[in-house]
C-alpha cells in the first residue's frame, strides 16, 4: 500500500462543524460509515442516481459572524437537458419558480447542466438537512427523467 494513501487529502474546504454535519447527514441517508467519511472528505456523492458536489460558503462577506456557513450543492444533470435553445429558455422560466418555491436554480457551464441550491446551516438540524438533500436530488432526478421522456425541463 502506498504510504501516501494512508491519509487521503481533505478535498472539501469547509470548517469542521460543516464537515461533521455532512458526515452525520450521510449516515442518516443510509450510507456506510466509510462512505459517509469519504463524502465529507471529497464533497462528492451519488444520490438518486445523480452526481452531487458540495462547496462551502464560510466566507463572511457581510462582516457578520453570526450568519454562519452555507453548503452549496450542485447536481449534475444529463447534457441533453439543455441541448436546445427552447430547453434552455424553459429551464430559466422554471428557475424563476424554483427559486421562489424551493430556492434552486438550473445552471449551465461549458455544456454541463446543473441544478444548484444552497443550505444555510444556522438553526437547522442534521435531519432537516438530510431530508432537504434527498428532496433536492429527487427534484434533479425528476428534471433528468422529464428530459428522457422528451418533455420540457419542467411543466410550464
Amino acid at each position, binding site marked *: 500500500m502506498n504510504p501516501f494513501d494512508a491519509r487521503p487529502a481533505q478535498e472539501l474546504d469547509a470548517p469542521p462543524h460543516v464537515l461533521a454535519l455532512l458526515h452525520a447527514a450521510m449516515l442518516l441517508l443510509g450510507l456506510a460509515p466509510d462512505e459517509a467519511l469519504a463524502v465529507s472528505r471529497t464533497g462528492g456523492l451519488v444520490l438518486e442516481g445523480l452526481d452531487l458536489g458540495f*462547496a462551502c*460558503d464560510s466566507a463572511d*462577506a*457581510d462582516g*457578520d459572524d*453570526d*450568519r454562519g456557513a*452555507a453548503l*452549496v450543492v*450542485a447536481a449534475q444533470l444529463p447534457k441533453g437537458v*439543455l441541448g436546445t*435553445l427552447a430547453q*434552455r*429558455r424553459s*429551464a*430559466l*422560466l*422554471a*428557475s*424563476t*419558480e*424554483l*427559486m*421562489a418555491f424551493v*430556492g*434552486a*436554480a*438550473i*445552471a*449551465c*457551464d461549458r455544456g454541463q447542466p*446543473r441544478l*444548484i*441550491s*444552497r443550505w*444555510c446551516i*444556522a*438553526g437547522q438540524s442534521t435531519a432537516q438537512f438530510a431530508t432537504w438533500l434527498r428532496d433536492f436530488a429527487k427534484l434533479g432526478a425528476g428534471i433528468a427523467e422529464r428530459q428522457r421522456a422528451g418533455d420540457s425541463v419542467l411543466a410550464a
Partner: protein
Amino acid sequence: MTASASASATPSGHPGVHACRRDAALVLGIAAPVASHFGETGVIEIAGEPLVLQPLHDDPAGPWIASTRAARPDGVSEETWIDALLLANNHAQLVAHAGFGLAPDGEAVLVLRIPPAHDDPSLLAIQLSGLLALIDSVRDGVRNAAATNASLSRTLQ
C-alpha cells in the same frame, strides 16, 4: 414603534415588517416618502430598477424573498442572454442564495432568498444592494461583450 390601522389591513400586515422594509430603504438613501411606501407595499424602483421584498412568514426576522428584473440589452440575442443567465447561475449561489430565472416577457429575474435573522435594516439593505449589484454586473457584462463583438465585426469587415 407605532402600528397604524392600515398596516394590519394588508396581507403583510406586521408593523415590524413595514418598519424594517422602510428603514432598509432609508439605509439605501431612498427619500423618506418613497421609503415609507416601500415599507407598506414591498415594491420600489431604485435607479430605474424594480425591487420587490416580501417576508415569507409575515415576520420581520425573516426569511425574506427579494427579486429584481432586467431587460435584455439592445444588440444582445436571446440565445446570448439565456446562456449568460445560465452561466451566472453557477456562481450566484456561491455568494448568496440567489438565482436567475426568466420572466415570460424575456426579462431576467433575479431572486434572492434572505435567511432568518435579517431583521436589522442595515443587514437587509446590504442584501438588497447586493441583489441590485449582481443583476447590474450580469447585464452590463452581457452588454459590454455584445458591444465588443459588434466593434470587432466592424473592424474586421
